Structures are given as C-alpha cells and as structure tokens.
C-alpha cells in the first residue's frame, strides 16, 4: 500500500515535470485531485482500511494530497514565469502538403477570361463537333473558297467536322441573341496540321465579338489594348497589320510589342520588337446578314487568338508540343 502512494507521487512528479503548459498541469490536477482522481479515490478508501492501519494510511494519503496540491500550484506558477527555450532546426523541411497544379493553358485561359469578364463580356461555349455551316458557310467561307485551304479540316461525316476555330460560337450566339453582343469564347479547336514545334492538331482559341450600333474599328484596337495590358502587363502595346480573314472586313493581324524585350528586339520577336498574336477585324456584312442582323444598323468587331501562343510568349515556351505532353516537371513550373 505505501508503495502505491510512492508510485503515485513519482508518477505525478514525472507528469508535472513533463508538463509544457498550464493545460497539461490542469489535466494532471483533474486526473489526481478531481472527483474521479487517483488521490481522491485513495481518500475514499481510508474508511475501509483496517482500524490498526487506518490512521497511518489516512495521514499518508492526506500528506500526498497536500503535497500534490502544492506541487501542482508550484508547477503552475513556474510555468507562468519561465519561458522555455526552443532549439529547432528550421532548415528541416515542413510536412509535405498536396502540390496540385492547374494546367498552364487553364491558368492562361482563366486569366484571359477574367480580363474580359471584368469588361462585361459574357463567356459563351459551343460544340467541338460542329456543322460545316457554322464553321464555314455562315462565316463567309463558302465551299471551294481558297480560304478553306488556310484551315485544313478534320471531317467526321459529310457536313460534320471538328471546329477549326472558335468562330462558330460567334454565329451561334448571334443567331440566338439580339444585339448588343459582348462575348468571348474559349475552347479547343482542331486543324489537320502535322505536329512540330509550332503546330499541334489540337489547340485552344479565344474568340471575341462585340456588336452594337456604333462599334468601330477604333474600338477594336481599344479593346485589344485593354486585353493585352491585362494579360501581358500595362506597358504592352498593340499594332494592327493588314491581313485577310473571310469573316471580317477590314481584317487585321494583331501584333503586340514584345513583352520579352520591351520592343527593343530579341530572338523571340525576330528583332522586330513586335509579335504577331492573331487575327481581328470588323465583322463582315455577309456574316451579319447570315445571322439575321441588319448590317445597315449593326456593326462590330471580332478577334481570335491562340491561348497556346499567349502562354508561349508570356512564359518563353518554345515548343507547343509541351502543352500536350503533360510532363510533371513542365506543369509544375507555372
């Protein structure tokens, strides 16, 4: 029996020494002196002890109780006055946390979308398997037009193809809704290009369209300017070059001041200071007519850029194939 009292004392001593904070001491207090505590249990046993030993046992238990109360009090006051010194090796790595990553094309896509959402553009979608009509005819690219050679097309059936650009979404949106229209569409497109460092048969486009009564060529430039500043930084400029796309007139190729060299000339911009990004122009009368808009009342602009191209220029990626290779070391970089 005395050994029990000694054991309890030793255990509590150890426990208190190991206590790191008041909470630890308090829980020891409950465990030993609480209603169901170890010491309290001993006190309850006193009355049941044989008479000849009762007094001695009672004294020992009461002494233990007194000592315990004091030791706990002491330890509590110690804790509140001393600050512990730590010696942690912070060069050790922390516990590993999940390291997920959005695909770089998703990141760029979301960035582009957020720029346009902030300008009040709706984001529209459309099917990847598209009717020839929406992909070509409605966009002023009739059958046999040489412009079809610009976009080598995958066919699934006569009249059914994989969209070669996101422009059919323009047509679908205009046929569904009345002007004013302010939309972009991002999505996967397909062209029958042999795979090399700058071509993959699958790629991603962002398409924009604004139609109203007084949208001008100057507005096109203004919106593209906002767009490239939002994506490439506020010092980026836009330049238009003459080009041809059957669904716009006038049509323009859009170049941005090289974000890598700031326009001074570098290998990426072939020392020109400018990088061609994609097509744009005023929506062709035939397209407006086709969707049932009156071209004498409504006019507007459209543009279509490659998301891969934006990512390549922004991050200096030289090979488009990397986007679809999905090497973890590539994906993890962005």
């Amino acid at each position, binding site marked *: 029996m005395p050994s029990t009292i000694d054991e309890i004392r030793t255990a509590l001593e150890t426990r208190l020494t190991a206590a790191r904070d008041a909470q630890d001491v308090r829980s020891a207090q409950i465990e030993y002196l609480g209603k169901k505590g170890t010491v309290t249990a001993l006190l309850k046993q006193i009355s049941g002890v044989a008479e000849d030993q009762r007094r001695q046992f009672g004294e020992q238990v009461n002494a233990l109780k007194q000592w315990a109360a004091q030791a706990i009090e002491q330890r509590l006051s110690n804790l509140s006055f001393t600050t512990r010194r730590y010696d942690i090796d912070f060069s050790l790595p922390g516990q590993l946390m999940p390291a997920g990553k959005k695909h770089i094309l998703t990141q760029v896509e979301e960035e582009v979308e957020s720029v346009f959402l902030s300008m*009040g553009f709706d984001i529209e979608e459309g099917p990847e398997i598209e009717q020839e009509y929406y992909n070509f005819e409605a966009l002023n690219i009739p059958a*046999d037009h040489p412009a079809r050679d610009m976009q080598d097309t*995958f066919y699934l059936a006569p009249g059914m193809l*994989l969209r070669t650009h996101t422009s059919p979404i323009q047509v679908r949106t205009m046929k569904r809704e009345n002007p004013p229209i302010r939309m972009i569409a991002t999505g996967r497109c397909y062209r029958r290009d042999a795979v090399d460092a700058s071509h993959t048969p699958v790629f991603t486009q962002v398409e924009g369209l604004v139609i109203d009564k007084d949208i001008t060529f*100057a507005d096109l430039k203004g919106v593209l300017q906002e767009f490239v500043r939002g994506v490439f930084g506020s010092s980026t400029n836009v330049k238009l070059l003459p080009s*041809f796309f059957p669904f716009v*007139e*006038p049509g323009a190729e859009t170049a941005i001041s090289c974000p890598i060299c700031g326009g001074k000339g570098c290998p990426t911009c072939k020392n020109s200071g400018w990088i061609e990004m994609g097509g744009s122009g005023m929506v062709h009368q035939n397209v407006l007519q086709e969707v049932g808009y009156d071209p004498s009342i409504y006019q507007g602009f459209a543009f279509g850029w490659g998301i891969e191209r934006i990512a390549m220029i922004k991050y200096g990626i030289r090979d488009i194939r990397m986007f679809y290779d999905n090497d973890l070391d590539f994906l993890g970089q962005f």
Partner: protein
Amino acid sequence: MRVKLSALHAAIDFDYTPEELVAKLGDVGIEIESTERTDVLFRDVFVARVMHTVPHPTRHRLQLIDLDLGSRGTTSVCTAATNVREGDIIPVVIPGGRTADAMDIATRMFGTVESFGMLCSWKELGLDSDLLSSEEKEGILHLGSGAIVGSLFEEAWPVGDTAFEVSVTPDRGDALSVLGLARWIEVLKAREANQPFDMGDIKLPLPSALPHARNDGDLAVTINNQSLCSSYIGVLVQDVASGPSSHAFRTQLYQLCVRPVSRIVDMTNLCLKQYGQPTHAFDYDHLQEHRIIVRTSLPGETIVTLDGVLRSLEPGTLVIADAAVPVAVAGVMGGLASSVTATTTRIVFEIAHFAPRAVAHASRHLGIKSDAAYLYERGTDPGLTVSAVPSVLSALVREQCLGSYVSRVASAGIPVPSKLPLSLDLDRVNGYLGSNLDTADMQRLFGYEGIASRVTGTTLSVIPPSFRGDLTSWPEYVEEIVRMEGYNEFPSHTPNLVLRRGSESPLKTLCKRLRQILVGIGLVESRTVSFVRESTVTAMGLPPAPLLLNPLTVDWDALRPTMAVGLAGAAVRNLSRGREGFASFEIGKTFSVSDHSFDEETKLGILLVGRWQDTNWTTPTINSSIFVLKGIIESVLRDLHVPCNVVSSDSAILETGAGVLFSSETTALGTLGILRHDVGVLLGLEREAFYAEFSVDALLKNIPTISFKEFSRFPSVRRDIAVLVDSGMTAGQLQAIVAEHGGPLLKAIVVFDNFQGGGLPAGKKSVGFSMEFASPDRTLFGEEVDVLVNSVEAALATHVGGILRRTRV
C-alpha cells in the same frame, strides 16, 4: 510564289533594299515569307564559243578544246567533259579566276598539254539547281543562242540576286505575278510621293490591242456559259518548231524562278508568272472539227488528264470541249489526248477568264492542285485576258520562232466585263472606322491604288481597276482606306458600352470549381489530345468512337470516348522519365456516336499510379490506392454537396469487383475503380492504376442549393464500438444499422477500424465505429447516450449477429 528581285526591277524602277521592300509590302498586306540572297562567288568566268575539239594525245578520257573569247582572243583548255561540241557556247573560268565552290584556277599541265582554265558546270557557277533543266545540270552548262561571246558570265546570266517567297492571303490573287507585285510597288511609290497610281511606270509590255481576232473555219471558239467564262481567246500557231528557248528568254525564266521545259511550256509559264494569266496549249490537230466550246460537262463524261489519270466529271463541271468530247477541265488541267507532243505541228494557246468558283469547285472535286487553278481560284484580271496576254504571247511566238506565224486569233466573250460604280458615304465610313476623314482624304487614298473615284457632296462613287477583283462591297473599300492610311494611323478608343457584369455558364463555373478542389487535394491537371486509336477503343471494350474521315495518323483516327487513354499516355511518359507516381486529372469533352449522330459530353477523368504522396522526414510515403481515389471523389462530392448512392460498377475498363458506380437518385454520375490490367497494358501502363471518370454535365444537374441548418453549440459525446461480424458484411450495411438505431441525436459515424485475420476467427472481421452524439439545444447526459449505444449494440447483434468486441467511452 517565288520570284527574284531582278525580275521586279525589270518590271518597275524602285530603289528599296530587299529588306525595305519586304517591310513596305508587309505594311500593305503582302507577306514575303522569306528572302534568300545569292552572291556572285566566282571570278573571271567568261562566255566562250567552242572552235575545235581534239582528243588529248596521251590521255584518252580528255579532250583539248580551243575556245573563242571574242574580243579577249582565244584560249585552250583540257577537259574530261563529254558534252562539248564545236559551236557550243559555254562558260570558262580562266587562270587567276575562282569558282563558286572556292577553287582557285591556275594554268595546269595535263601530260604534255597546258590547260588555260576550266569549263564550268552549274556547280562551279553556284546556280540554283531547282531552276535548271535536267540537260543544264548534266556536265558543262550550255548557254543558248544570243549569249555574247567574250562577255563576263555575270553579264550573261542573272546571278547575284535575291529570291523572294511571296505568300499572300486568299484575297490577294492580284499580287501573284511580277506584274501584280510591280503594281503594289507602284502603289507604295505613289503613296510616298503623294501622287496617283500610274500604270505608265510599269515597264512590262502591256499592249492593249488584240491582234486581228476572228472566228473562221480555221478555229472557232464558242462560250456556252458566259457566267462561268467571260472571255476566251485561242491563238493558233502553225509549223511549230521544237527546241529550247533562246538565251535571253531562258535567263528571264531564271529571274522568274521558272525551270525551263520546252519553248511552248516556257511561254505559258512566262505568261503565268509575269502576268498572272494561266494559259494552255492544245494540239490543234487533235481538236475535233477544230472547234473550242466552253461548256459544262454532261452526265457520264470523262477525261484522261495530262497526268494520265482517267477522271469522271461531275455533271456541271466547266470544261473546254472540242466538237465531240471535253479536252480540258477549265482552268485546272488539260487532257492528255489533246496535249502537245513531239509530233505536234500546230498548236492553240488558250487565254481565258474563268469564274473563280467554277475552277475552285472542279479543282477540289477532282483533287487536282495546279498553278493555273491556284491563280484562277484567287481571281485573274479579265482586262489582261483579252488584251495584253494574247498580244504578248503572239509576239513571243514570233520572237522565239516557235512557229512560222501566228495565223489566227479566235475569240469569244465580252471584251472586259464592266464593273458598276459603288457609292461610299463619308459618314458611314467614318462611323465604321471611328475616324475623321473627309472626301478629299478618301479620294487621295484611293488614288494611290488606282481606284477611280468621283465626289458628289459627301458621297464617293468608286470604280476599281480590272485587276482588283476583291473589291465588291463597301467594307472592302473601307479596308483600302485603312490600308493606304496605315493600319496604325487610326485612333484607338474604348467602346462606349453599357455597364454590366459578364456571365459564364454554370457548367463553366463548375469546371473551374472542380479544378480548384482537385488541385487543392494535390492533383495536377493534364490536357491531352482528343484523338485516340480506334483499335484501342475496341480492344478496351468500349462502344465505337466517332471516326475521323481524314485522320492525321492511324494512332489518332478516332475521338476519345474516355479520358483514360490520354491520361494513361501522360502517366506512361512521366513514369518512363523516372517519376515515381502520377496523380492527374483532365476535364474536357469526350465523344460518342450513335445512328450517325455525334454527341459530346464534358467529363472529368482522374488517374492515380504509383506514389501518391512524396516522403520526407515528417511524412511517410503514401502510395496510390483505391481508397485514396475514393477519398478524392468523396471529398469532391462533399464539397459540391452532391448526394449519391454507390453500387458496384460494370464499367468495361475497370477490374471486376474493383469498381463502383456513383449515382444520384436519377442519373449515373461516374465510376471509379482499379483500371483493368489488360487495358492498362494496352495503354502502356504495366503498374496498377486507379481510375475515376465522372460526367460533369451530370454532376451539374445534381448540385443542390444550400440552405442553413441549425447546428449544435453544445459539447458532443463520442462513443466507440467494435463488432465482430461475418467478413461478407459491408461497412455500409453496418453503418446503416448504426445510423438507424443511433436515433436523431447521432450526428456522425466514422469507421475507425476494419480488420481481418490476426487473432480473429476465420471468416470474421472486426469493424469499429466512432459515433458522435449531440443535441442542438442542450448538453447530453452520459446515461442517455449509453441508452442509445445499447440500442445500436442490440440492433447489430440481432440483425447481423455482431459480437460486441469493446465499447469505449
């Protein structure tokens, strides 16, 4: 189109460097894709005439050649060449000179004979072999009649030049010739000098009078379909003599980047390259009744084209026919039967203007791509067809002595299709461009391009020149204003738009949210190509995938019906590069086909292989497992609040018994499980892989709206129990019993243990549940929780014979 700087200089005077020319043409929309400069690398090469040839006295493979160098006297050389005869005009490099391949020439002894120089082949002269005929590439180069003996070779042959590769957009057919480029250079000059366009600055011959056209018995031309062929001219040449083109003509072809073939073909090629007018030569004696009829083909008609292929003509195809049968597909390719051969003595040159769409349709339908079709599709100049080209061709025939004379020119059609003037309203133009131009500005800008205009008030009446077939509607004229003013001279402006918020579809929002959740869990997003191999899909046991009619390769001949193929490919590549694991997802379209109609669905695919979590001193390695994957899916569904049931899956690509189907009350949401081993192997994955595929469209339909539920702010009570049950019993079945008998105060159940073997009896397992009880309005008493736990224990014992192993408070 390839052409050399010297050919442009021959057509118009300008003093731009090649670099400046490229930049300036680019500014007006004519792209020069590349430039290639050739320097004169040889020295002291002269044009010589062979006077005598005698065999070398001792070396039988050599010849001694005496050469006339004109005013430079004579010389003699030893040569091993076998294609040198008396009278030949050939290049020779003299001692002290140097060849293009850097050989220095000195006097040299061949046995007892001294050789004063070396005869040259194209290689020693550094000529462009692509532009030489096969004869010209054999042995010593022969110059044609007309090369001046004694002159320097660089005076006799246009070496030291810059070649341009012109790549124009489909609307710039007018720039696909030397004449066309010269016209654009004139536009540039006019704009710089602020002068109107002047055709007089073009130095190419552009005669306007058609040599005596008449239809008589010798050759009759009829056009049956004027809307597809506005004019057709046949030039009949008799007593045709064969042989190569003259030296002057041949070197002109070199500047035009045309390889010589024969005098007749060379002439047609010159018209094509120089003027942008395709021409074709028929054997006159193979034209039935000496008639040419431009008509559309009749049902059942066929033709064997020049390339020897028998082609059936779609009825309505524009053809050139004689009195009996089609002899050419108009503007695309001639027929073999009427083609010019070695025995031809009389030919008819065709010069015509065909409607672009007629040629384009026939070219695509027959699958024939020809230079002529390329030009016709982009629009040729009807003005040239009826005037300059027939005259130029007739003159060439005389100059080149191709035939004794041009006997007949027969024509049909309208001289030049007239263009109607188009009205441009000043306010409309400014309102379109956001500009502030006046009528004088517009007139001036049109003037640079040779577009005639007349001002009435604020309206311009414009008529394009015949070579600008692209100008048909007012926005096209607006483009010319922009082109001439400069694309960057226009203001930039942000549109005056109504303030509003942009929106996106719920599906798009859900895709973004899914990506966010999965990336947070630690998955990397992949994007793989949408193509798969059909045989792979079949071998996987999946329904047929949509097939491409014209796939790029057999490996990509179908559209993906599942994300598994692309993700597995990405996993294989990563594992082969030494990565220890691959945990990735992709969100995108998958495709299906039924009854010839195609369908697409947005899907989420997740693939786990190998290591799931990397290790370090604090963190143990965790390998991918079916329960890691299930945890991911549960986490996603919990985040989306999608309620679902789980039943075993019959997915073709998952192992039997190792797959589950998640479904809402009404629809299947997706499956997850262990990828079937043979499917993995088929996709290159040897290791165990875990795959889940969910329909994002279906998830979207099952996302509930969230509303607040009262929750308990009183301490909860936790009790653990473990029961011994038959190992066939599922955790789900047990959990259902616990839930049912735990009563409404049971807030949560966690399976903390699932154990089999060890000291447990065979066929038994122990499952441990941790139950959390709470009340929304009070603190629970231990005793009332005990009652609930007892009822759970009793239910487990009654319903599944569970033996209580322990209860922990």
